[in-house]
């Protein structure tokens, strides 16, 4: 690895990262003892990489703390699911609560970290992850806006470029917003970023240099 200006570390021989590798990176950056909500989809993979004994507690917004891994076989219980409506398990020390209490927990700023997917993130931390604004789309928002505004830190996991090559880290989101200035870190297949008032800072790159990356993005990198 090569340290660069702004503290960026380049990993030219490693990357682009798989979803599993990205999940491992996110897991590495979550403090022991944190209370964490993992969004539906890719972020769910983070759970597999949380170190044993870290004391990290998972929240699921449908009303539970200390959610365990996916349920299999006889463990499956239709009354015990995660926010993606998949059967899960209960760890010792769990608790159940209703929706108003669950979202009070989230919106009151009690969760340390939530990890979300995204369509776009702006350099100032705006998040767009609930609607592409397509005319014929059936809109659905779920918990996205509550998580974006509620958790102390919002981490995003996404590929940095869409299938057509368009960057998803942008100067300003063109898709409908989920939340304003809420994302603090972005984990992608080719780089990780810290966002803040200073704008976007590259923390690490994978299989690409910081300069090559900068050339492909329209955002000014701090």
């Amino acid at each position: 690895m090569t340290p660069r200006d702004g503290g960026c570390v380049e990993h030219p021989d490693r990357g682009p990262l798989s979803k599993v590798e990205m999940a491992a990176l996110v897991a590495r950056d979550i403090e022991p003892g944190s209370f964490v909500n993992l969004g539906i989809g890719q972020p769910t993979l983070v759970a597999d990489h949380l170190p044993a004994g870290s004391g990290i507690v998972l929240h699921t917004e449908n009303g539970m703390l200390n959610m365990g891994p996916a349920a299999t076989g006889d463990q499956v219980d239709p009354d015990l699911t995660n926010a993606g409506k998949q059967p899960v398990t209960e760890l010792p020390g769990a608790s159940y609560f209703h929706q108003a209490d669950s979202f009070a927990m989230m919106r009151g700023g009690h969760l340390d970290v939530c990890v979300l997917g995204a369509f776009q993130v702006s350099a100032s931390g705006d998040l767009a992850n609930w609607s592409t604004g397509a005319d014929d789309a059936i809109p659905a928002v779920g918990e996205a806006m509550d998580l974006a505004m509620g958790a102390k830190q919002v981490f995003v996991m996404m590929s940095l470029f869409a299938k057509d090559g368009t960057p998803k880290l942008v100067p300003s989101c063109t898709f409908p917003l989920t939340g304003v200035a809420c994302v603090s870190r972005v984990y992608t297949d080719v780089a990780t970023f810290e966002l803040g008032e200073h704008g976007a800072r590259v923390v690490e790159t994978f299989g690409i240099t910081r300069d090559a990356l900068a050339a492909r993005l329209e955002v000014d990198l701090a």
Partner: protein
Amino acid sequence: MKVCDTAVEALGAVEDGATVLVGGFGMAGMPVALIAALIEQGATDLTVVSNNAGNGDTGLAALLAEGRVRKVICSFPRQADSWVFDGLYRAGAIELELVPQGNLAERMRAAGAGIGAFFCPTGVGTPLAEGKETRVIDGRTYVLEMPIRGDVALIGAHRADRLGNLVYRRTARNFGPVMATAATRVVAQVSEVVDVGGLDPESVVTPSIYVDAVVAV
């Protein structure tokens, strides 16, 4: 509070044009028997408040398919198996008020708690706050949100006692306790009705004051 033998009897009268709160998150806590009773009962032009807008062809989806729902207030209508809602929505045959999930819960809580309106951080700067009053309080921007009240709430719980105290099971608790506070008439389907004294008073989640009728299914 009335312990009823059938879901139709528990449901009682529902008027055309009523607002119906329907519990459940996906199928967990979904009051399937009460929705079937509502289909049988016949009320139409309904506004349904629920987290989702029906799965597959049964339950809420069946009510929608019968053309009995004018408007859905929900947070996550689009699902892999929400084809009934999707079709109605695309055909312009159903109205949708999309509400962030936390706002949905908190707006019903407000209705149940006598709160006239509240300033809420969720949705600020997004299309779902457009046209709503905002205010900066202590440097943070909030949107003013209004209560959501139901004429009737249909909820799924685990056990009731004969007074109507309810306990739930695991994440099937979800919207039940909040909806029970927010409707004029509250009907619960449960797995079992136990005698008074059969529930631990420390563990009751919905106190009997909120419940009008229960049916074991």
